[in-house]
Every structure is written in structure tokens, then in C-alpha cells.
């Protein structure tokens, strides 16, 4: 039997040059390959990686303790000694930025992950069981979403008090409805597929159907939202700590550094510019990566 080669197969064969004929990459490998071809997304990823590495090796690349005060050199502009200058307590801004990455990055990530896990599970379970349960969950989401997220986070933080853990809880509560909605919508797109019916026919339980059969197939939009979620959380956390909520001095966090720098807007502009630029670069890189991820995971844009 001769093999019929259609243009589509030919294209596939070209892509899989060194792979056996008929090989079709798994959707995630395929997506990863498309992502790796996207230059801006890779650039974003590299920047994120640099920031993470800097945060990890912080003690080895900084000369000064981020909380050590030195009143002999306060508010010094950037120089060879202090490359980002010093703040009003004489603390080295570069050290504070580097150590701040150890606070700001994990908080953003944890906020997104916590809201993803709680909101995601709620959304998946709601979509799977449907009926009254789903209605109640979605109506509750409506209620929470009637309060602008920033306000809700402020109110929750006020109720819980300050602290990094409370900051994460506040952001998580404000974001749960969003993730519940997105994962519910994503599950709806795969719920009616034949393989779910097949899974049920061979006696798979509810949990197995939900998390083994439905979730992996609905993961695309959820991952993309989470990536943008990390970026959004970093911004919200910085705004909250600028308002003096959540993270308090002397923790070196980028948002609270800005809050402190506010007074010295005219006398030490570099102090307010640098932490903001750091936030911007981080969030920019995450957004670039997220954009690439969305393009790579969206089957319509192949």
C-alpha cells in the first residue's frame, strides 16, 4: 500500500525532520516549541530567570546589609560605592532592591497560585456537577465581584492586619471569583467530549474524571490567566504596600520602598525611580511571556 502524502502531512513531516514518520508531538510539546520560536516570549522568560537568580544569590552579590542603617551617608545619589544610591536611613538601595526581589516575586507568585488552586478547584467542581451547586457558587462569585478587587483586598487586609501571609490571603480572596469563572468556562469547553463519556463508561470516578481527564485538556486558558495573574498580583501588592497596608518597614519590598521614597520626590528622584523601574521590568517580562504563552496555547492562532 502506497502512502498518500497530503500537503498537511508533508508539512508535519518537515516539522518532525528527525523524528519517525507519523510522529505527532503532544499538544504541550508542540506549544513549547512554538513558544521557544517566539523571540519576545523567550526574552521575557530570560529576564524573569535573571531576576529569580538574582533573588537567590542575593547575599553573594550585595556588599551591604539591606536593613543596615548608616547615618553618615543618607540620600546619596548613585555612585561607584552605592550603584543605586542610598535612602534616607543610609541603606544601600541596590541591596534593598535585590533582597526586595526575594519578597516581591514570591508574593506575586504565591498570590496567583493560591487563587488559582482555590478558585480553580471551585470552578471545576461547579462546572462538573452543575445544577443548584453551580448556581450558588456562581452567584457568590457575582457578589464578591461586585466589589472592585482592589477595594476588597484593602478591606480584607484591614480586617486581618499586616503581614506577608495576610497580604496573600487578601489577594487570594479578591481573585478567587476570577479563577473560578475562568476554570469553569474552560471545563465547559471539554465537558461534552467523547473521551469524558468513555472515561465514565470504564468506571472512572468523579475526581479522576475532573482532574485527570478534563483538567489537562482545559489547562491552556487557565495557565495563561495565571501568568498574567502573577503580573497583576505584583502590581496590586506594590499598590497596597504603597498605601501602607500589608507589608511594613523595614522589610525591603519594592512597593513599600516607593511609599518611603514618596517624601523625597524632589530631593532624591532616583530613590523613587529605581524600585518602580524594577517592578515595571519584572511585570513587563511576565506579560511578554504571558502573551507568548497565550499565542502558543491558542489553537486558533496556529
Amino acid at each position, binding site marked *: 500500500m502506497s502512502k498518500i502524502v497530503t500537503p498537511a502531512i508533508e508539512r508535519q513531516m518537515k516539522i518532525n525532520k528527525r523524528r519517525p514518520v507519523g510522529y505527532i508531538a503532544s499538544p504541550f510539546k508542540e506549544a513549547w516549541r512554538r513558544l521557544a520560536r517566539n523571540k519576545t516570549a523567550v526574552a521575557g522568560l530570560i529576564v524573569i530567570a535573571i531576576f529569580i537568580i538574582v533573588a537567590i544569590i542575593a547575599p553573594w552579590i550585595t556588599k551591604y546589609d539591606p536593613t543596615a542603617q548608616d547615618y553618615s551617608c543618607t540620600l546619596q545619589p548613585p555612585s561607584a560605592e552605592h550603584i543605586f544610591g542610598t535612602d534616607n536611613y543610609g541603606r544601600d538601595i541596590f541591596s534593598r532592591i535585590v533582597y526586595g526581589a526575594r519578597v516581591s516575586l514570591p508574593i506575586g507568585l504565591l498570590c496567583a497560585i493560591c487563587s488559582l488552586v482555590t478558585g480553580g478547584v471551585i470552578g471545576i467542581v461547579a462546572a462538573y456537577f452543575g445544577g443548584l451547586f453551580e448556581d450558588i457558587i456562581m452567584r457568590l462569585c457575582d457578589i464578591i465581584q461586585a466589589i472592585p478587587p482592589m477595594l476588597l483586598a484593602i478591606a480584607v487586609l484591614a480586617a*486581618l492586619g499586616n503581614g506577608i501571609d495576610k497580604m496573600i490571603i487578601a489577594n487570594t480572596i479578591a481573585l478567587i471569583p476570577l479563577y473560578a469563572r475562568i476554570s469553569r468556562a474552560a471545563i465547559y469547553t471539554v465537558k461534552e467530549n467523547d473521551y469524558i463519556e468513555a472515561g465514565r463508561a470504564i468506571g472512572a470516578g468523579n475526581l479522576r474524571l475532573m482532574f485527570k481527564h478534563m483538567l489537562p485538556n482545559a489547562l491552556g486558558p487557565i495557565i495563561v490567566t495565571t501568568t498574567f495573574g502573577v503580573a497583576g498580583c505584583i502590581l496590586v501588592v506594590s499598590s497596597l504596600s504603597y498605601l501602607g497596608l500589608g507589608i511594613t518597614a523595614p522589610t525591603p519590598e519594592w512597593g513599600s520602598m516607593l511609599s518611603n521614597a514618596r517624601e523625597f520626590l524632589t530631593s532624591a528622584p532616583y530613590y523613587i525611580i529605581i524600585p518602580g523601574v524594577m517592578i515595571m521590568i519584572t511585570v513587563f517580562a511576565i506579560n511578554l511571556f504571558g502573551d507568548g504563552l497565550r499565542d502558543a496555547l491558542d489553537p486558533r492562532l496556529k
Partner: protein
Amino acid sequence: MIRFVIRRILWLIPVLLGVITIVFILTAITPGDPVSMLVGENASEETRQEVRAELGLDKPLVYRYGKYIVDIVTKGSIGVSYKTKKPVWDEIMLRFPNTIKLALLSLAVAILVGVPLGVLAGVKQYSVIDNACIIASLIFCSMPEFWLGLMLILAFAVNLGWVPAFGIRSWLGWILPVATLGLRAAANIARISRSSMLDVVRQDYIRTARAKGQKESVVMLKHGLRNALIPIITNVGSQLGSLLGGAVTIETVFSISGIGKYMLDGLSGRDYPVMQGGVLILAFVFSIINLLVDIAYAFVDPRIKAKYKSHGISKAERKKLLASFAKEG
């Protein structure tokens, strides 16, 4: 269609009740005693009790919750500030115009800048305009908005001295806060407009319109933009929500006397009614906006209209029909 609108309006009631409940629970678990904030830590136990009774804080939470709701329904009152002893409603209404002016002006800037740029970028995909638009909008999306505000102050108020850095004594003072919120929202709207336009230009009806020899400008504006508007409208609605939230920080940055600043001040003084009232009013405004967006959406999207029409016959008609069936046996 009418049924849809009425249902959405009625749905506001349980939503607002829910919001009141959430806010009440939050203030109930808030640490810190408002009485100590008012009379000081060293006040005698007697004065404490007096103040407590005066504020109604000696009653159980459930009673206060019930009273709060009853007061809203019967007197239209959302409480009295612990500190100033003035009705929160009046205080908020004094500041509300500033907040809403800030949000609406910013939204106007955002739409006027964001939609044309996004649509242009979508129509000319991969062009210089497109790339510039993507990068600019990404940069603005990636800044904390209060920081953008501070940078604008640094550039235009401190260094150039064109506009005042704080306050809104003249219209010049509005420029920076509106630019801050507006540019960020414009960046979001431009992103959505672009991707929505990209979706639309690949559709068959665009090809059809081109095939019949229609002018490109007409194809894009009449066939393209009109269909791309649906997601844009939804996004504009949600932008207004985040503008209201963002107004809280921006009011603080520019010292504008608005609801956000009032609430934050109330928060630091443990003035619960101020906090509750502020969240409630903003949630109410936000819900009304979402309602309007939903209705606008239903008018623009024929699918939703059809959903509420294709159930076809009204109840009265069905009754008539059933009656006629019954008559015929």
C-alpha cells in the same frame, strides 16, 4: 429583552445584600477597638462604656447588622461616622463628584486613545504602528499606577512646572491624575481592541465584503469595527471598575478629596461606618455599571437578544394557545 433587563435589575438586590454582609463580617473581625481610637487608651472604663453605648457597639453583631439594613431601607441612611458624627451618606456625596469625575474623565481619555490605536494596530498587523502600540501598551500595563502618577508629577510638576503636583484647585490639577488613570486604562483597552479586531478581520464576512469590491475603509469600519465592538464594550465596563479601584490610590497620590481617600482615612481611624459606606457605595456604582454593560452587550450581540426572544411566545400567548387546544379537545 425587557425580561432580561428586569431580571438583571432585580438581581442587584441580593448582590448588594451580599456585599453588605461581606463588609459587615470583615469589620466584625477587624482588630482594634474604635472606642480606644476615639477616647484614647487611657480613658476610664465608664467613658468607654458610655461611648460604646452611644455608638451602638454594645449591641450584638446580629442586631447591628439587622439595624444597618433596616436603616438603609427605611431611612436611606448608611450609618453615622464615629469620628465626625456626621451621616456617612452626606460625607460621601460631598466627595463622590470628585471620584466619579476622575473615573469618567480617565475613561474618556482611555477610550479616545485606546480604541483607535488598538483598531489601527489590529488592521495593520505586524506594521510599525502595531509594534509600537503593543510595546507602549505593555509598558503602561506593567507599571503600578501610583508610580506612573509619581513619575508624571516628577516630570511635569517638579521639573517642568507646567501643572500643580497636588490638589484640584484649578482644572490644571486634573490633568495629571486623569492622564495617570487614563493612560493605563487606554493600554488595556488598546490590547483588547487589537486582539478583537484581529479576530474579526479573519472572518468570512470580511472576505465577502472585500470580494464584493467594497472600499477597504468601509469594510474595516462597517463590517470590522462593528463586530469587534462587543468585547471592547465589555472591557470598557470592567475598566471602569478598575478605575474606581485605582482612584483610591490615585486620590491619595494627588491628594484629591474623593471617596477613596475618605475610606482610607476612615480605615486608619477604625471608623467602621465610613469604610462600610464607602465600599457599599462603590460596589453599588460598580454593579450599576456592570448592569448597563450587560444591557448594552445584549443590544449589540444578536445572540443574546435571540436567546430571550426565541423562547418565542409569551406566557399570555401560551395560555391562549393552550386554552384553544383544550377547547378543541
